């Protein structure tokens, strides 16, 4: 009986550890451009499968921070580990383990829906068979059977965003970075998009998302608010509302962002 209990306990612990894997870890991460400190000693970690919201006014340092975590920009000082990889030594390796989607660049507008899926799946290293299977799966899931040969530029924005997200996770990365993925999209499509985010999180994909829609901040497991390059708040949405004694995240944001000195790049 004791051996049995011990075995259960060990299995439980290993599952727990598996579940609690840290996929992003930073310590005093800093980026300077000359005298300007864009990101000022930020320290935080993100667990596997978390939906982690990254908020802040324009100019607060969010994009700069995200670029460092994606291996696109070398930090000035501090430490950062993404998907087990050190951002200083192997930035190229990071790119293989992450997905990325932003407003400014997501899909090739002059390629069709199917061409985009195949192209990205190929770049992320999927085999021919995997590419075929994934393409079929994606098209079915998004209901794009009649649009596979349509140029992406002819798709409405909401459909493009959903396709873009699916393509960003086609290789089941550990982490997907979403830079304002739902800008300009109507509420229903935004909610459908967030359903897709929940699904991905349940599959163990960690979601790192920035947004200006503060109702979306409520969908995150934890959120972090950056002001003037520093992290001014980091907690679950409900804890943040409690500690600021307000009933929505917009109010939290105002209270913090109002004292910001920077409103510009």
């Amino acid at each position, binding site marked *: 009986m004791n051996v049995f209990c011990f075995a259960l306990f060990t299995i439980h612990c290993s599952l727990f550890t598996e579940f609690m894997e840290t996929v992003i870890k930073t310590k005093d991460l800093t980026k300077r451009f000359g005298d300007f400190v864009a990101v000022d000693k930020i320290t935080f970690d993100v667990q596997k499968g978390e939906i982690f919201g990254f908020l*802040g*006014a*324009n*100019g607060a340092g969010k994009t700069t921070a995200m670029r460092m975590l994606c291996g696109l920009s070398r930090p000035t000082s501090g430490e950062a580990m993404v998907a087990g990889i050190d951002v200083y030594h192997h930035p190229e390796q990071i790119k293989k383990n992450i997905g990325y989607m932003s*407003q400014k660049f997501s899909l090739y507008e002059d390629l069709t829906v199917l061409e985009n899926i195949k192209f990205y799946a190929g770049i992320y290293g999927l085999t021919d068979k995997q590419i075929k299977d994934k393409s079929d799966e994606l098209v079915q899931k998004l209901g794009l059977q*009649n*649009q596979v040969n349509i140029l992406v530029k*002819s*798709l*409405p*924005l*909401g*459909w493009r965003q959903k396709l873009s997200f699916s393509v960003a996770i086609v290789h089941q990365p550990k982490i997907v970075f979403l830079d*304002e993925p739902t*800008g*300009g*999209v*109507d*509420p*229903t*499509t935004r*909610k459908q998009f*967030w*359903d897709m985010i*929940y699904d991905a*999180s*349940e599959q163990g994909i960690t979601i790192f998302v920035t947004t*200006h*829609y*503060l*109702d979306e901040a*409520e*969908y995150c497991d934890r959120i972090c608010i950056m002001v003037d390059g520093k992290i001014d708040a980091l907690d679950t*949405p*409900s804890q943040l509302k409690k500690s600021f004694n307000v009933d*929505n995240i*917009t109010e939290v*944001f*105002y209270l913090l*962002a*109002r004292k*910001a000195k920077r*409103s*510009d*790049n």
Partner: protein
Amino acid sequence: MSAISLNNITKTYNKGTVLAIDDISFDIEKGEIFGLIGPDGAGKTSIFRILTTLLLPDKGTATVVGNDVVKDYKKIRGIVGYMPGRFSLYQDLTVEENLNFFATVFGTTVKENYENIKDIYVQLEPFKDRRAGKLSGGMKQKLALCCALVHKPEVLFLDEPTTGVDVVSRKEFWEMLKRLKEQGITIMVSTSYMDEATLCDRIALIIGGKILSMDTPDKIVQAYPEKLYAIKSPKMHQLIRDIRSNDSILNCYASGEFIHLSFKEEGKDNETSLKKYLEDKGQTDIVFKPTTPTVEDCFIRLLSVNSEQRIVNSEQ
């Protein structure tokens, strides 16, 4: 005389195969802030382009301050300000150069009209020698607004002016719009932010080229047909799935920290049977209460009723 008037406007693309605007008529009074709310592809930008004389309608007529958009297009161009979707100014010109350019194009100077834009421009002035492309999102929109106002227009057309702009800058932007309204400028604005819809005097919900609802935000909300409820539990991601699998549910979607839902039929047992159903699925600590619909709830409802239209639009 209305400031803006559309009468039976229809617009198609691709030799008539794509119906972008389907027989739309409405009037906007002077000094109104009128919001056009709708999903991508609904026809909002086409409406803006027709009213700013950049696009010809297939059928119907429209006037801006009494001037016909086809016959009197030159006159209209001198009296309207237009901010098209996303940033539209010259990225390589500085803030000051952009402003001077637009003032000149309209046959005036910044100096002559400084009073009109002073409120907004004072925030940009410290950056007047910075190239427009290097400004943050919020600053870009302020500059674009100045350029649209520099010639003292009577009507302002703003196509999604706050997309991509942070919450604090958006609030400031709308405060500026309120001050412009007080000066008698008529403003027609489209937005995807539902909280901004409530700041308009009247709004029109547009889907698939048709206007489905047009009234003050308050009246639109009062017209919501079913009772709406809010629910939450410690397992939110699972909760939405559990609710959707229940046959008695009409609509269900995430809304901030709650999920909003409505039942197919009202009944006093709805709450208890739903709670039991959810508890059987492993949900605990369920919070369930009635909630007042918002403009977003109205929009989502209208959109779900008209979802066929969206499929048609997306095949364009």
